[in-house]
Every structure is written in C-alpha cells, then in structure tokens.
C-alpha cells in the first residue's frame, strides 16, 4: 500500500473545490482515460481580471491525483495569474506533506492543467502534451503517453531529475512499453549538458596487458550489471591469451541457460574487446 501522508488522505477523502464554474474565465484540461488520469480545472477571476477568486476541479484518477487537484485549487485562490504560474509541482507535493516519488506525476498534472488554463485564457500557445489534443509542441518521445521532448525537458530541469526512472515517476514517460527510455536518458544529458556516454569502440590493436584490463572492464561495467538484473553473477577466473575463463555465481550457477549466457558473454567481449576471444565456463 502507498505510504500517503495524512494530508494526502485528508484531501482525498474530503477534496476541496470539486465541481465546475459555469462562467469560468479559464478552463484547463489535461490527461485522458487511456492515460489513467485526467484533470479539468476551472478558474474564476475578479472584476479586474487579475486575481483568482475561485477555482474548481474534476479529476479522474487515483487518490494522490485527487488530493493534488484539491491542493492546487486551494493554493491558487487569491493569487494573481502571474503568481499562480509560479506554483511548481514540488510546491503542490509539499503542500500535501510530500507524495511517494512514483506518484509525483500527479503533482505535475496539476501544475500542467494550471498552465494550460492560463495560456488558453491569455490566448497564448497552449502547450498540451497528451495525444488526445491536437496542439503539440516538440517531438513526441513517449508514444504510450504522448509526451514531447519539450515537456519532458521542462520537468527534468524543474525537478532536477537524473535518472530515466525518476522521469517515469514524474511524467509517466517510459512507463508503458519502455521503448523511449534511451531517448529519455539523452534528454537528461541534454538538460544538464552532460555528454552521453558513447558506445565503446573496439580498439585497433591491444597489448596483452591492455587486453586483460579491457576484458575486466567490460565484465565489470557491461556484463555483470546485466546478470545482476536477473539475479545472477559471474567471476573472472583466468585470462590465458584469448581464452577467458569464467565461473557463474548466484542464479547463473546451475542455471539451465548458463550455456547461453556464456555465449552472450563471449559475444559481448568479441564486440567490445577483440574478435578472437573465446569464453570457457569453469567450476570455480
């Protein structure tokens, strides 16, 4: 069960400002049934059309989506439009005493609905990211949830997200088929001006010492992490010329497909170190 704060629970069980405003000045809609959550936000301005005097919402979604919507409407009442635009998704989460990281996308949805509502009211370009709406800005990165690079970069920068997993928690991007995760990593690198780690190129000629170092490097950085993901592991036993002896550990030891794994290790070493490498599985 999610570890929701008392404040989240309270706003979910007794949400403030549910409903609609018939003569609303601004309405913002984000999300869709397919996405699993959606928010429709109504804003009423004062006579000078400056300050928000009332805000109401309708939300389709989980407990934290409803609580985030409720929090948002409470936070923006009394603010000018410009002040309201400064509300960040983190502030919505903070208002609720925090959200589980996997649920941060609920706070992002709130902040986004607000931006859409105000942009529509002001007649500026509407930056809607979901695939049910026509207006798109940027290139769609996550096809499952219809999210663009512009939107993702904004959330990455605003929340200082450094892993693809965090981006998924905050925006859902990459949470469907997962096909866009490499692209999300590139966007993170772009935002923080990091260099994307280039695929290692196979060196032309190697001394024996360098070759041994490279084999160890590839095993440590490329191969073992992949085995760990399946609960397995391996140990380097010996390197004799081009023959690499390994012993399987954990789930790989005695695994029905360890023969296949050995082939995988061999191919990886051939790709990244030298073509003549053979891998032998030994007891050790």
């Amino acid at each position, binding site marked *: 069960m999610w570890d929701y704060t008392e404040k989240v*629970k309270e706003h*979910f*069980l007794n*949400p403030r400002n*549910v409903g*609609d405003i018939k003569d609303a000045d601004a309405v913002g*809609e984000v999300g869709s*049934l*397919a996405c*699993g*959550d*959606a*928010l*429709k936000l109504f804003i009423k301005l004062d006579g000078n059309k400056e300050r928000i005097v009332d805000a109401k919402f*309708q*939300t*389709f*979604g*989980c*407990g934290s*989506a*409803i609580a985030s919507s409720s929090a948002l409407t409470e936070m923006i009442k009394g603010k000018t439009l410009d002040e309201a635009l400064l509300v960040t998704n983190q502030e919505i989460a903070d208002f609720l005493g925090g959200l589980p990281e*996997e*649920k941060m996308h609920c706070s992002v949805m709130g902040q986004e609905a607000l931006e859409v509502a105000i942009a529509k009211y002001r007649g500026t370009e509407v930056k809607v990211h979901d695939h049910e709406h026509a207006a798109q800005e940027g290139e769609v990165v996550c096809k*499952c*949830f219809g999210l663009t690079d512009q939107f993702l970069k904004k959330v990455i920068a605003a929340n200082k997200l450094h892993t693809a997993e965090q981006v*998924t928690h905050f925006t*859902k991007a990459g*949470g*469907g088929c997962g096909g866009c995760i490499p692209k999300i990593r590139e966007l993170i690198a772009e935002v923080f001006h990091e260099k994307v780690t280039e695929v290692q190129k196979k060196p032309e000629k190697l001394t024996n010492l360098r070759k041994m170092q490279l084999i160890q490097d590839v095993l440590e950085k490329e191969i073992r992490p992949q085995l760990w993901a*399946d609960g397995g592991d391996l140990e380097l036993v010996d390197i004799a010329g081009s023959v690499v002896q390994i012993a399987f550990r954990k789930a790989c030891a*005695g*695994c*029905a*497909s360890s*023969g*296949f*794994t050995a*082939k*995988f290790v061999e191919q990886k070493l051939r790709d990244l170190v030298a073509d003549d490498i053979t891998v032998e599985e030994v007891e050790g």
Partner: protein
Amino acid sequence: MKEIYLDNNATTKVDEAVFDEMRPYFCDLYGNPSSMHFFGGQVQKKVDEARNRVAALLGAMPEEIIFTACGTESDNTAIRSALEVFPEKRHIITTRVEHPAVLTMCRNLGKRGYRVTELNVDSEGRLDLDELKKAVDDDTVIVSIMHANNETGVMFPIEEISAIVKEKGALFHTDAVQAVGKVPLDMARSTVDMLSLSGHKLHAPKGIGVLYLRKGVPFRPFMVGGHQERNRRSGTENTASIIALGKACEVAGQFIDDENTRIRSMRDRLENELLALIPNGRINGGKAERLPNTASIAFEFVEGEAILLLLSEHGICASSGSACTSGSLEPSHVLRAMGVPFTCAHGSIRFSLSRFSTDAEIDLVIRELPGIIRRLREMSPFGREFLSA
C-alpha cells in the same frame, strides 16, 4: 476496524485448525526429519502424513509431491527443469495472461535465445486451442499454462490443453495456485506433467508451496544440495509449514463442495446486485468458465485505486487491475490482453471470497460500493459527462 476480507486471491487467513496443527513443530517438536533419532523420526512421520494429505487432495501419489518454498519456486523449477532435460529444444509456449512467476521467466528466456510463444485470449479471457495446436511443434520443450487466472478467475481447460501438448512430445506444466482447493483435481486421471500450488492461497501459511511431478516425468532439480525430497529439492524441510499445508489440504477437500455452492452463490449475488445498482459496469470474463470465488468487475470512468481507498475506509479489502495500485503505469496485463477498453480497465476491482466470507460482508459491499462509484464519477470529468448524458 474489523477487516472485511475479500482479497483471498492475494492471500488467505491461516485456518485456526491449520495453525494448531503446525504450532508444536517450532518450540517442542523441532527435530530435523533426516536425523537418526526418535526426535527427528517423529517429525518425519508427520511430514509423510502431510505429503499423503496433499496427494489426496490432488488425486496424486505421495511420491509425486515435492515441497518447495512458494508457487513461484514451483513454477520456476518446472520450466528450468524441462529446459535442462531437453537442451536441444528451444521453444516455450505460455499465455499473455500468465502470472509473473511464469511470464517473467519465459520473457527472460526469450532474451536468452529461446523462442517464446505467448498465446492470446479473447475478450472473455479464453484461449483458442487451435492457436495452441498451431504453435506447438517438435521444437517445443514445455508448455506452461495456468489452470485459473488470479485476476479474473477465468479457467483454462488444462486436460484438453495437455492432450494437445503431449501429442507433440512436449512437457505440460500448469500453475494451479488459484485453482487448488477451489475446484476438484484428479491427477490420477490427468495427463498433466507438472503442477504448482501455493500454501497461502488455501489457508496455510506463506512460504510453502508444492510442485507436483508426475511419476516417470524426467526432472532436474533447481535447488541442489542434500538428499531432501528424494534429491529433487534440497534444503532442510520447512516442517511446520509442510505439516500445516497437509492439514490445509485436508480441510480444503472437505470444503470443495461448499466452495462451489455457497461461495459461488455469494459471489454471483455480489456481481448481480452490484451490476443492478451501478450503471456501466461489466464482469471481466463473465461469459467464461470461472473460479467460484472470484469477481472482477469493471466500472467505467473511475480509477481503481480511488475505489480501493474508499472501500478501505469501510474496512473492505479488495484489489484492483488499475495501474496506480501496482506502481506500474498501465493497467493489468491480463485485462489488456483481454482487450478490456481503457475506460473500464483502470476501474476494475477484484473481490475474491473464501470459506470464511459471510453474507453480511457481501451485504456491506453491496451497500457501500454504489455510493463510492457515484461519488468518484461525480468527481471525474468523464463520469460527469456520462451522468449528465
């Protein structure tokens, strides 16, 4: 708050009689059944008795019962064993609606060079046996297809499936974790090679499972070490839990009729009354043959986690096929495989009953759920459109 526990496909209460049976084997009768003294020997006798009781529920022979730590271990062991026995064969068949204990295993093997076929289901969650017939070939090493689905309760015809599989010389394994104790099984008349069950789904404790292995079916152990379980599953026996599982199987055998009469009629009443009171609901897999205890109901325009949290306020424990409850972002793979529309998939709730469920509990759900759905629909932009239409 007293719990109204309707989440028995997730786990079950340990029956008091089962707990009484296991209790002495912690502090008093703690001997190791392998020991060469009276103290261990008396535990060995109880383990044998438990094996007989499990075998009796399955219509199996005692030597066909291998105790494991859980359903997942049984599933993993069955598949890995088949691959080791027939290393030259490279094709595995399963279904898109399988439990992760089988599906994740198969998908991982797919990444390691095995050819994996995942059979489709129709909108009611049923298999097309012609698709299986076309898929199974001489390269097929094992077919692993569940007996009953944990989310919808939809049952697959394992004997017909087994006949198709055997014709091609492949092994057939079924994950019967949800079916054992709810529907009768008779392995003596069956052709199924391997079958998994889990203790905590039938009122035994968590941490005990069984792999049924038909006599004569070739096998390679997953856990190796000591001679326990006739070298088929090493590791000192979890004696108290094995003894508990034996008792649980004995009791389950006595309640199988109850399961298919009283419990089934409670489940049917729950479904019928909820559908009568709540517009735009549907039973997932309602037209298929199903377990008697499971109701998976989809309500349009609302989200499952919100329903569960509001039910929980009344002490009602159920579960959901929605994305938000699992931490994943897409609705359950089972509902998606069935093609349940997104408008419904996010709002699917599963109630799963047990012999401890009562009419009063069902009444409470029937009383509270319509208001919860209405409240969430009034809050949902799609629900409001629907309500005003």
